[in-house]
């Protein structure tokens, strides 16, 4: 089943005529994602050529969804306009379909814009926001699958491990680690490294818990905020499937922003040590080194009688 995104999900690209949008839309088509067109205000009626095929562009998300009945959209719009693009997509999905998944890749959106955008999305009950500042979401299929974002598609394979992560390349490490022990993935979700984002760890864990195909989950956190601690509490109370983890930033100094806008230890809160200890006490085995995630996952699967 995978979570939220089926292998054949119909996907729109917001900002498809931009350099980033077009580049990644092409990679998504190459992977096998069912791209149905895109949206760029003022460029409606044009087409964009991806992998030798022309795709339509609309001015508004409402027109695009009305015509294509899309299930999801991926946003490659520059930071000043990305908050507005999220709101437009949420409004269009909600009014036309009552549901939809919005994946926002853009890095560098002002925090207050994200506060407004997440408040708007939360009122639209069937609409889900993933990101921003994230690699996206991928559900690998038998042949191709649905890659909605910027991750390298070819490192993934269909399988039974769910992955949720705040980081980009570290997620790819986690994917490679599952592959190293002969396991594929149901769905991998990058929730992003911004202080204010849409879908969180608990949303993903709860969806993986309810997904019949997912057998175990890898959770990758990093310094900043308390999302890992809250997720650990949720796992100890609700999760029956094995969860293993890794938290980046053991050596990060306090008060310094480590690349991601949200990766900062402030007021003594948000350290990796606190996160790992909360996760370990919730029964989540944590690797000290990302090269050992596979080993830790294998042991968790064996302990649960799944290998």
């Amino acid at each position, binding site marked *: 089943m995978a979570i939220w995104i089926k292998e054949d999900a119909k996907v729109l690209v917001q900002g498809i005529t931009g350099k980033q949008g077009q580049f990644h839309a092409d990679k998504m088509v190459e992977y096998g994602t069912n791209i149905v067109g895109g949206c760029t205000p003022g460029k409606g009626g044009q087409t964009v050529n991806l992998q030798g095929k022309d795709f339509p562009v609309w001015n508004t998300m409402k027109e695009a969804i009305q015509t294509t009945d899309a299930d999801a959209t991926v946003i490659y719009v520059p930071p000043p306009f990305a908050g507005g693009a999220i709101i437009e997509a949420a409004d269009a999905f909600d009014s036309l379909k009552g549901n939809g998944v919005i994946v926002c890749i853009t890095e560098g959106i002002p925090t207050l814009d994200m506060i407004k955008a997440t408040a708007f999305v939360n009122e639209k009950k069937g609409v889900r926001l993933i990101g921003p500042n994230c690699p996206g979401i991928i559900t690998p299929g038998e042949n191709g699958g649905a890659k909605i974002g910027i991750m390298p598609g070819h490192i993934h394979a269909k399988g039974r491990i769910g992955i949720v992560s705040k980081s980009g390349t570290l997620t790819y*490490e986690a994917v490679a680690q599952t592959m190293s022990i002969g396991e594929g993935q149901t769905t991998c979700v990058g929730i992003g490294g911004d202080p204010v984002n849409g879908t969180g760890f608990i949303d993903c864990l709860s969806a993986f818990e309810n997904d019949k195909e997912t057998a175990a989950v890898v959770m990758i956190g990093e310094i900043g*905020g308390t999302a890992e601690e809250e997720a650990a509490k949720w796992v100890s109370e609700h999760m029956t499937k094995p969860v293993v983890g890794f938290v980046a930033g053991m050596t990060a100094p306090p008060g310094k922003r480590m690349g991601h806008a949200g990766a900062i230890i402030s007021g003594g809160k948000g350290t990796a040590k606190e996160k790992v200890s909360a996760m370990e006490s919730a029964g989540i085995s944590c690797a000290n080194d990302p090269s050992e995630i596979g080993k830790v996952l294998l042991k968790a699967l064996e302990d649960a009688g799944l290998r």
Partner: protein
Amino acid sequence: MNIHEYQGKQLFKMQGLPVQNGIHCKTIQEAMNAYDYLGSEIVAVKSQIHAGGRGKGSLYNPETNELVMEGGVKIAFNKDEVEKYASSILGNKLVTKQTGENGKIVNNLYIEAGCSIAHEYYLAILVDREMRMPLIMASKEGGMDIEEVAENTPEAIHKIHVDLSKGLLDSQINTLCNSLELNDVAAKSFAIMIKGLFTLFVEKDCSMVEINPLVKTTNDEMILLDAKVGFDENALFRHQDILELRDLSEEEATEVKAKDTGLSYVKLEGNIGCLVNGAGLAMATMDVIKLYGGEPANFLDVGGGANEEQVKTAFSIILDDPAVKGILVNIFGGIMRCDIIARGVIGATQALDLDVPLVVRLVGTNFEEGRKILSESDLNIHTAETLAEGAQKIVSLIGGEE
């Protein structure tokens, strides 16, 4: 991005918020003139650096490291004292709880008129990440270390979350006034002040505003006696006026250089330089170096789509740090192919005459070709398949554990 207290107070003043009169000075003479100009018998002489804990900090001579004076914020009762304090502060090194051992040289002073204080409060506005809302925090226990208050008596800190679509409500302000036990006159003054301060927070895309202390005068007026203001760097594109307040001398020069070229760099205390793509992986690389007995010299994220030029700049930034004795490159090639990264690494090492050991770990797209390019070059480049192997190699190449 942070600004100085005196700049924060200028912003407050423009917003019509109650602050004392004050003057920004860069010399002792300016400080003495400011005393005359302010016409207040008692003034505060305040060191201006981008770090908290100034009052309890200590000033040292930057050359001899001799203690010059305890306390970076002083109350002067006459002009001679202003001269004495200003000369003990300017040009000296202020070490506080937040600056680290190296402290910061004080180049700016703020001379501020005194006021008669009846009570000191704590007030802050920041973003609550988990609730996804701005949060106002206030406490009757002002003037002291708020982290200690939060630790020992968390119930003494009152919190109000503000829904941006509704704004700050009068009922919420009343609740705060009651919690702070303000009388009617002071509550009126507080209400006007907090509305203005919240407006400023939203209009200028602040990441944090902290006032410690906020004071009530003997006339029941509320005055913002402190101003620690930080801004969301992602929103600076729409605030040219704020960008102009940036004081580059308060920031690490290499960090500024990195930021200007689209790289994310943070200097650390160790001797193994790291060059990584992606923030999470960059942190993990530092952690694994430490795990195998080394000390990372920096955090450096070249971004998901790094090109040859950025890799070269990244190397030059790492090598600017004289402490660096070896470099670990850790790249997970996704969209960016490993063969391109390998060529970038070779180009950079040749152009920069690299003379420290270099370990490169490439995985992901086209990694075989990338490794082949590296091993066929006649340069002294070691390769590794896993992060653990890479970390162990670089630690042993620079001479093992310290």
